[in-house]
């Protein structure tokens, strides 16, 4: 089992996300993460889908996805040189005694503090999954109140389109 990143361009229309999600559910494939947004062409959206599976499963997923009329193109970019990003918002307990320590961690990860409460901070970080996992681990000892993490988005390096 290997993680695959599928970059799927679809019609930017209502219901397309449901079609894709229904297909995964119905065929018994599990979506690990999913990010959707408009592309440079407003009539097209891009879904970045991370799915676990051996080559046979990924081949089936891809073929079944292609059968959806609203799916335009699918590229498995797992083997490509690429830039990957996720974004996380972490609300962490932070009274006066630990604030300096947290600020240092934020600086090390080149993250940002985006909100300050009386006893808490909201920290925003972007990066690949490894960095996001690391900042989460570093902040956990202080007490994470809330955490929101986006799905992965990715882009192939160089001049070509994914």
């Amino acid at each position, binding site marked *: 089992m290997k993680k695959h990143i599928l970059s799927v361009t679809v019609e930017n229309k209502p219901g397309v996300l449901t079609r894709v999600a*229904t297909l995964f559910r119905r065929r018994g494939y599990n979506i690990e993460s999913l990010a959707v947004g408009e592309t440079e062409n407003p009539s097209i959206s891009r879904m970045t889908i991370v799915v676990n599976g051996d080559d046979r499963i990924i081949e*089936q997923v891809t073929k079944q996805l292609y059968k959806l009329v609203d799916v335009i193109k699918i590229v498995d970019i797992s083997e490509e040189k690429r830039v990957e990003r996720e974004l996380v918002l972490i609300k962490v307990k932070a009274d006066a005694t630990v604030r300096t320590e947290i600020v240092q961690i934020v600086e090390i990860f080149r993250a940002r503090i985006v909100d300050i409460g009386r006893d808490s901070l909201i920290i925003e970080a972007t990066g690949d999954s490894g960095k996001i996992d690391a900042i989460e681990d570093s902040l956990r000892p202080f007490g994470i109140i809330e955490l929101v993490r986006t799905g992965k988005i990715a882009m192939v390096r160089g001049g070509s389109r994914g």
Partner: protein
Amino acid sequence: MKLKGAQILLRCLEEEGVDTIFGYPGGAVLPIYDALYDSNIRHILVRHEQGAAHAADGYARATGKVGVCIATSGPGATNLVTGIATAYMDSIPLVCFTGQVATHMIGKDAFQEADITGITLPITKHNYLIERTEDVARVVREAFYIARTNRPGPVVVDLPRDVMENVIDYESDKEEICIRGYRVMKGFNSGQVIAAVDLIRKAERPVIYAGGGVISSDASLELRELAEKRKIPVTTTLMGMGAFPSNHYLSLGMLGMHGTRYANYAISESDLIIAVGVRFDDRVTGKLDDFAPHARIIHIDIDAAEIGKNVDVDVPIVGQVKEVLAAINQRLDSVEEYTEWHKTIDRWKDEYPLVYGAPSEERIMPQHIIEVISEITQGKAIITTEVGQNQMWAAQYYKFKYPRTFISSGGLGTMGFGFPAAIGAKVARPDLPVFDIAGDGSIQMNIQELATAVQYKLPVIICILNNQYLGMVRQWQGLFYKGRYAYTDVSHQPDFVRLAEAYGAVGMRIKDSSEVEKAIREALEIKDRPVVIDFWVEREADVYPMVPPGKSLIEMLGGD
């Protein structure tokens, strides 16, 4: 020209060559029915929307054209669902129009509102909810295009009432259909064709395994050419019945769970399987690990997603079955030999013919009825079936000779399918006798359509193989549940003869084998209304041979 959405819809249907619609009116489709009233398109009024979907399906299977049905919003639309799923599983081209509440009411739980595009998402090839009258023409064209091209399938078009009622300026433009995410499959990989030809030349024990794709691709002649050129035995799936003549010397009949022993043995012993328009369904392969252990596999199909879905194949060829077979045939020379392989198969055919037992007094063997219909009609009839024992006996004992003459719910296995499908088939092919081979259980699932058949003077012949059981389930209870017949005894049933007569159909009851032929000949003489023949058959007759579930194809029960 100023036209209502509903009028534009009807014009588009006429442009698509639609001559018949099966439907049932209701509040949300009133504007469409009003437009239909002025149209030349024939509307067949069914008595339940499920009947409309199955009738459109039967029409499509009998002709190869797209079947069309219409139902109102809410319960009308949800009543189509079983019919849509049936067509989806068997890759039948349908366009199903459903009424919808007005656009400003959608999502408000309005009266007779159902999210039919949501409900049918996993059982349609594609579906549409039209939100603007300006989109009606484009969507209808796309719907037909998608339904009939590549691997065919049902498309649902949901039509809000206001979209049908609104008037816009409309000029018919024959714009090219352009759907970014949908391309019609053209051509094939010729390198793969050469690889296939090479395997066929070298094979010593080849078998062709042909399915519904041969029929939907209209490739029976090409299939026959391949078989005859290389003297390759042919077995068909349930969906492939009629793709190859059953009385041909190379025919092995059906394979799989209730296939012939010789078909299953041939597949299991073969060194090359040429799989054409098939999907390696579990009812065909039996236990997957033991399927055709010695064979290399060539798989030809229009749907790339079917390649490697259930079994690994050696030479996949994605393309129109008809084109691919023609290309293969072109590269193959004829052989004349009668080989060891043919001798082995002939020996199996002699040793394990399809057999059934003798009837008891006052009871007929159900298989005998199918044989008599086959004998009388000589393949020149359309046979629809319900689901269960009736379906398997029809597939085993009727000698199909032509494509589109066997109409049966293969994938979904829908009881209640056969009779409305027979109505659709009869509307499409009034020149052919149409039989619905039914069970006493299945026929009661859509018996209300007798009113439809009587109204439109459709002489469909319903042969009820009446064993007063849900026979196939009872058979499994007998074999695998220690004979505990839990709730499969349906002997509490209506008098089918009087029921037929109440609807205005002809009813007959036959209990004696010697009267079977006479009854069928009499039924064939009736040209202006349906006939129900209630055959009292041997109650505990079973379908054999049989591959028990989860077993391999060579572990068959019965028929030896």
